[in-house]
């Protein structure tokens, strides 16, 4: 297994991409500090490990190095090497050990260093994590959290760019959340840690350091299963999660003279907030789903199916998907051709408006 570390994935902030630093909507509201997305995750860890002595973090390079993205920085020093544990390089073993730790009363958080490095652990996730509580007929809880950076656009070597959420969503017994703002990165992770069900959290690594936003201090929990209207609009709903949410907000800005776009941030892929999806579809009558993962049987297909089953009479046109392609994630020199762009999403919106 590759262990490319931070030098493998060039932090977007150092890529000369304008470095404007995205600011999520509503970033100025509320009590808190302005943090980057990865700082918000680190803040969450410090709060949650301080709050519950059964919570522990384990993963490759999470301790001494503080994580290759520094998400776990300072935890080993503050809470000791047992509660911020540098694991051997063994993703399946790590996840399997976490199952046993749950049986011993711990609430482990497993860091998978990168999206595509998590695949060996799918064995444990599929055969045990999502099934063990059921096996005990609900008598034992398996409150483990899996978290990992996901997604492309960071000019990284192969297999540092995947969007594997559909594999996880498809697995019964686990929940899946993907934040798109620093505040949600903290709040959804806190909800995952506190949940007695296994939860997988994907973090948009593209925005680890490029996005800053207001993050509530101290305890901050965003309830699982609640979507968020990132942008109010009336003509078309852009449905997205993770790194595609700020992209959709850019689309809304770019197209402001043509139409009014609503942006729905799904936040929790499982359980899906169907009410929020259907309400927005009913309001605008047009839905464009934006997903970075390959198209076929991706999460967007599930969203489209829900709309087909439950929103038919509200829709004025077909549900449009703008997604990654059904190809291996490309070499980084041409990765931008793969990623949904403002222009590609805008074309999807225009196609729907013209229907």
């Amino acid at each position: 297994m590759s262990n490319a570390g931070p030098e493998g994935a060039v932090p977007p902030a150092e890529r000369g991409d304008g470095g404007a630093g995205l600011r999520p909507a509503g970033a100025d509201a509320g009590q808190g500090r302005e943090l980057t997305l990865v700082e918000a995750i680190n803040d969450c860890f410090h709060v949650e490990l301080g709050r519950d002595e059964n919570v522990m973090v384990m993963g490759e390079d999470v301790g001494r190095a503080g994580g290759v993205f520094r998400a776990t920085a300072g935890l080993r020093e503050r809470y000791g090497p047992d509660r911020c544990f540098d694991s051997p390089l063994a993703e399946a073993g790590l996840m399997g050990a976490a199952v046993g730790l749950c049986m011993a009363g711990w609430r482990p958080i497993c860091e998978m260093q990168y999206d595509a490095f998590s695949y060996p652990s799918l064995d444990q996730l599929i055969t045990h994590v999502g099934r063990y509580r059921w096996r005990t007929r609900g008598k034992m809880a398996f409150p483990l959290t899996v978290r990992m950076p996901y997604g492309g656009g960071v000019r990284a070597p192969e297999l540092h760019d995947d969007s594997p959420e559909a594999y996880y969503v498809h697995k019964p017994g686990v929940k899946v959340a993907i934040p798109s703002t620093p505040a949600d990165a903290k709040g959804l992770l806190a909800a995952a840690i506190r949940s007695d069900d296994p939860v997988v959290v994907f973090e948009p690594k593209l925005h680890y350091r490029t996005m800053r936003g207001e993050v509530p201090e101290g305890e901050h929990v965003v309830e699982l299963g609640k979507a968020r209207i990132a942008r109010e609009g009336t003509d078309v709903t852009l449905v997205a999660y993770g790194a595609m949410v700020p992209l959709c907000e850019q689309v809304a800005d770019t197209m402001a003279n043509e139409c009014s776009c609503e942006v729905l941030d799904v936040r929790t892929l499982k359980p899906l907030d169907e009410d929020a999806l259907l309400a927005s579809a009913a309001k605008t009558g047009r839905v464009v789903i934006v997903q970075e993962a390959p198209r076929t049987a991706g999460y967007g297909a599930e969203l489209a199916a829900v709309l087909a089953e439950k929103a038919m009479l509200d829709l004025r046109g077909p549900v449009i998907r703008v997604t990654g392609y059904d190809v291996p994630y490309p070499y980084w020199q041409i990765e931008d051709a793969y990623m949904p762009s403002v222009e590609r999403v805008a074309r999807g919106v225009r196609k729907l408006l013209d229907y």
Partner: protein
Amino acid sequence: MAQVIPAGRDLRRVIGDGDAVPDGEVDGLTEHDLLELYRSLVLLRTYDERSVVYHRQGRIGTYAIFWNHEAMQAGSVYALEDEDWIFPSYRESAIGLLRGMPARVILQWWRGHPSGWWNPADYNVASICVPIATHVPHAAGLAWGKKLRREPAVAIAYFGDGATSEGAFHEGANFAAVTGAPLVLFCNNNQWAISTPLSAQTRAEALVDKAVGYGIPGIRVDGGDVLAVYEATREAVARARTGGGPTMIEAVSYRAAPHATADDPSAYIDLARVEEEKKNECVGRYERYLERLGVLDTATAEQVRAEAADVLRQGITEAEAEPPADASLVFEHAHVDPLPSFEDELRELRGG
């Protein structure tokens, strides 16, 4: 420090053959202990033999036979304390009997009834693990988690020779070694993984040699000798409990029965060898040992067998008396917080 017995060296063995090979003994075991071990062996043997019959009668589903594996299970469990955790594979499906689990529960597991799923914390026996070796990391994690909590519990994971080829075995063993987890890695080397012989599984001279790679001690023992298994496990458990970390035990035996009720080994196994092994099967070996020792008489043996037969008779009667599971149970227990979609799906299931 690794203390691996060289592969060429004899297996640890206590029970002789009543002839050229003299009987040994295990220090600390009383006559009561010897008879308790006998009870365990007979209970497991009875469970196994009755289960094959129940399967043929259509009263349980496909069943993984453990005939001639009883010494490995009974001997090792006798070396544990109640607080110690057992992680069985399907080959040890009935090991909970040795922890007071009713036969009804295990029979229901093989009948596909939900009441066959127990709460592991009630017996400190984890759920039966079906995918090979994937429970080894669980045992490592539990053992390490107990150690972190300064609780004295030890874990034991049972797996077969085929399991040592799996990544999960390696990751679990290594994880336990690195964390110093109080774990016993118990390899039941019955020399067959369904139809694949050990020679096609590994080039290692002995499976216990793998312990060297993890920097942990290994013990190689005769898996048909309940006393040798007990003694080896006692040593491993004592080391684990006093902070010495994991030990790998390779118990060498022979699968003298089909892999499962759905298997026909005549296609791949040497039947003459099977017949040879059957003559030396582990329950009879121990019976003869106890008789030579003057600890077991015919009346006691018959009484022990009758008690075990009663346990099984009662178990299958109780299992068959349980009402069938309600179909709505399919939505139960996977989540603490059920998915909102379950409401609609349950309505659909009920024909709505």
